[in-house]
């Protein structure tokens, strides 16, 4: 094996290594890989986006129509501003409803668009006004527990009777509670 051939092979080897490292950095690390063609961008403000990430899918009726381009924070309104790019083939009415859903119980979060009835369609730079926040599981659970605790149930009645109180009085008391 002469020196030139060895040099050539080593050169190919090193080039492959650099390509693999670049691939790991760009393709695996961070580089957009969307299959959507020409897009237009609209923004939507959410009070809470949960775990939404840039490049997450945007779906309407379950079909992929775009991707999340950017997520920012509006420090005046204290809201998350999500920039969405939507494929130019799909037009949505101005009163489209944007939700943040979760795929499966623990899956990734995506933006769901529900078309409204307006005749004007969303244009580049428009803002979606009707939004619904991501469901935060902890909030839901604590709300559920709160509601459960405020319901007068049999156990508390029994203990109230033992204590010599009238059950009706306790239920009105609980009914006046701020929640």
């Amino acid at each position, binding site marked *: 094996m002469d020196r030139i051939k060895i040099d050539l*092979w*080593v050169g190919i080897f090193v080039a*492959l290594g650099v390509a693999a490292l670049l691939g790991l950095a760009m393709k*695996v690390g961070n580089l957009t890989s969307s299959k959507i063609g020409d897009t237009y961008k609209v923004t939507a403000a959410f009070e809470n986006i949960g775990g939404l990430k840039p490049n997450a*899918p945007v779906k309407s009726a379950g079909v992929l129509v775009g991707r999340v381009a950017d997520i920012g924070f509006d420090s005046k309104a204290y809201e998350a501003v999500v920039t969405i790019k939507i494929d130019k083939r799909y037009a949505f009415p101005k009163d489209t409803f944007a939700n943040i859903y979760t795929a499966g*119980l*623990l899956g990734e979060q995506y933006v769901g668009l529900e078309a409204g009835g307006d005749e004007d369609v969303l244009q580049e730079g428009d803002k979606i006004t009707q939004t619904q926040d991501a469901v935060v599981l902890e909030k839901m659970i604590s709300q559920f527990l709160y509601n459960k605790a405020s319901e007068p149930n049999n156990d508390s009645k029994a203990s109230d009777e033992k204590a010599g109180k009238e059950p009706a009085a306790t239920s009105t008391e609980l009914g006046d509670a701020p929640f």
Partner: protein
Amino acid sequence: MIKSALNGLIGLLSGIGHRMIARTWRLGAGARLFFLTLMYSGESFRRFHLTLREVYFTGVMSLLIIIVSAFFVGMVLALQGYNTLQKYGSSEAIGVLVALALVRELGPVVTALLFAGRAGTAITAEIGLMKTTEQLSAMEMMAVNPIARVVAPRFWAGVIAMPILAALFSMVGILGGYLVAVPLIGVDDGAFWSQMQANVDVRDDVINGVIKSLVFGVACTMIALFEGFDAPPTAEGVSHATTRTVVISSLTVLGLDFVLTSFMLVV
């Protein structure tokens, strides 16, 4: 009766002590060879074609085994990962699973194990045979330093080849996982890559993987070189040395992996 038991115990203890001393001596001799290699590595850069030749033998010739095994490792990771993730309805996370497993752990570790088997044994056998056939002594007679001429180029070739092979392993493994996950199983293409990109950090995952593979490269090559250099000049001695190269390299790589990971995760 008691005396013979005592003698047996003493024999056992002295055996352990003897082995400990021998191991410690080998550790010291290995460290000395490592420093000598670093000291005399000027030659391997001044006459770089010597190192390139070794990169060809250790790196380029290992490409096939690395790429094929990476492909299968990636594919099996995707299959197994899908099987479990699908129960939790998050099969889109399969890309993250495959990429993180490969970039952080499997890429550097499996590459190092294969490298020890493919290139390390070759280095040990070659140097051991050079010693057996008195080529190393002949070099010394001609005032050629065998460490500068034989050991250092092989050392640097291993250090250069290992990170490249590990990076290739990770990349090919991810492609293998992609092939199983997206066309075969039907995971969403965009979610596969987007979740991967959202969760794989270039600094914390990719660079740390490269650091790991560099350390493994130094360890594997040095162990192979030392075992070859230290082999008794007989056919049996070389064969034992080759076996030891694989055993010690594999254990060292797995142990070092734990140490490095704990450092990287804490800091």
